[in-house]
């Protein structure tokens, strides 16, 4: 989810939730991340995002690499521009 407290603020990534459909994603986002009185919140499926500069970006592929397999930077074969992950 992305949210902002005031109209003038930037949208910030505030967290993730797991939901079987868009309607429940909206409900869970609003009810789970209620730590602030948000001016606006928006939620999108992970598959809506495309990696821009990393070939194995955790955010777009579904999470951090398994323990013991190094950092994302170690796994990048080509730093900088690479093939975007499938969304």
């Amino acid at each position: 989810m992305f949210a902002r407290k005031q109209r003038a603020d930037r949208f910030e990534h505030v967290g993730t939730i797991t939901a079987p459909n868009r309607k429940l994603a909206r409900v869970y986002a609003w009810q789970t991340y209620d730590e602030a009185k948000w001016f606006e919140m928006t939620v999108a499926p992970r598959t809506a995002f495309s990696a821009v500069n990393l070939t194995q970006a955790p955010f777009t592929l579904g999470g951090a690499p398994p323990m013991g397999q190094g950092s994302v930077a170690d796994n990048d074969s080509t730093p900088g521009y690479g093939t975007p992950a499938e969304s």
Partner: protein
Amino acid sequence: MTETTKSGFKSAAELPDDLHSHLGILLLSLADNKRMLGIRYSDWILGAPSVEAGIACSAMAQDEWGHGRIIYSMLKDFGHDPAALEHERTSEEYRSSELLDCDVSSWPELLALNFLWDTAISVQVEMLLESCFEPIHYKVRKLLEEERFHFDHGSGWTSRLMTSDEGKNALGKAFATAWNACLRWFGPENDPLIEALVEGGIVSTNADCARMRWLNRVGPTVRDLGLVYTENSEWVSEPTPDWNGWSPVRRRASEGGPDADSLARARGDRNRSLL
């Protein structure tokens, strides 16, 4: 404050005796239903199909208790002692639905309460949005704002379960069990209580119109369960309401009430013994 077509009543004291009595009955029923529905939601904070669903049940439980508390406090102006209402009544004195008398044992049954019953209560609350009874305006708006997430939760989960035969069968049984209680909650066609409140400008539509609004709201999602069909763009219930055992004052089945455990939790018995 919004202008109304009839003279507004700025306090309960200004209401004529019959409207005062009838509105008091409706508000007590709404408050008890919200209190007990909150307890039913809270039963599923742990044990829901996902962590997020459990968090949603927690949020909905808190919402309903808050709504119940707001309405109970209004009942002071209708001759009730809010503290006595919340802590001292017997099970038979509660005006909440028979659907809420005890815990439900499955997620589809919880969805029957969430999607069907919670929506039925909200539709009745909507009837108060343009009420001539002005103290209720702001409270109703705030309450309905939170209820939209309850509807989306119920609708989202119902749609999810409808995608499998097993889910659909389970929903079909649970929703069929709850259906009659929801249909008759709005009252019979010429319910004298609702008719009087409509005539007095306290609620906006009669029992049949409210029932139709509820059917139009839930119909599209449950259309494959054999409970509704469409006629002239409206959703119509397949089963007709069965009024046997209906209590027009309790607004529920005349027999029964919250079970012992639910009553103790609603009244806070175990904790109040420490005070």
